[in-house]
């Protein structure tokens, strides 16, 4: 049987180690989360599209910040008309490459109506012990 003083010491040690573990876990979690968000907000997907004699020529490029590994999966660029119907879709697999070019013929409907364009890219993000699958919006510039 342990003496009462010794037992008290052991309980205090147990309490102390538990508290230290919890505090470390908490601060590390907050720190990792804030850094992750900061890094993620620096990442962006850009796309420039040129309308050259009847075809869309463009380039998709993903900018990844230092230390954060971005593995692109695919990209989708939608051309919508006023009512939200899809006029044309340009999509392809990226397969881990940060740059991709495309050359697609323009559909006739697009030349005759008003339209706007939106794009999404599915990416896999790896950083420290984190792996995330995210959908990032593409900043599309049409010239």
């Amino acid at each position, binding site marked *: 049987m342990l003496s009462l003083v010794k037992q008290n010491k052991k309980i205090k040690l147990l309490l102390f180690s*538990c508290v230290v573990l919890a505090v470390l876990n*908490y601060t590390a979690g907050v720190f990792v989360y804030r850094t992750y968000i900061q890094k993620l907000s620096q990442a962006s997907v850009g796309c420039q599209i040129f309308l050259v004699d009847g075809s869309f020529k463009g380039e998709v490029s993903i900018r990844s910040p230092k230390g954060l590994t971005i593995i692109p999966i695919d990209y989708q660029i939608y051309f919508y008309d006023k009512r939200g119907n899809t006029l044309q879709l340009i999509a392809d697999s990226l397969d881990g490459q940060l740059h991709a070019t495309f050359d697609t013929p323009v559909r006739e409907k697009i030349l005759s109506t008003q339209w706007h364009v939106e794009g999404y890219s599915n990416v896999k993000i790896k950083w420290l012990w984190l792996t995330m*699958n995210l959908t990032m919006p593409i900043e599309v510039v049409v010239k």
Partner: protein
Amino acid sequence: MRKIILFFILMSFIYHAVVFELILGRFSPLPSYILWVIVGVISWVLGLSVQSFSRTLFIIIGSFIVAGIVSYFLMSYYIKESVTDLVQMVTLKMISISLLTIFVLSSVCALFGYMFRSR
């Protein structure tokens, strides 16, 4: 009195850490169940060292409420950028069920600590 205040702050923090673990568990290095064990151990020590169970219960309930309020306000800081993936993780169901479980677990651990204290 000092002991009660210290334990009150400690329990508030630990409950808040559990809420944090529920929301952002992926980002913290330790797995969630370790934190649940830690809550159990600390509650047990609380019941062991505070000499009356009414005070223990007061500390547990009070700090649980305080931790809830603190977490509510800090949540708007954690999820400032609405990363959709994170928001999806915070479902009401998960949080309410887990919080109820952790509260009951903690109370029972404290009761055991009180029952088997050394006089």
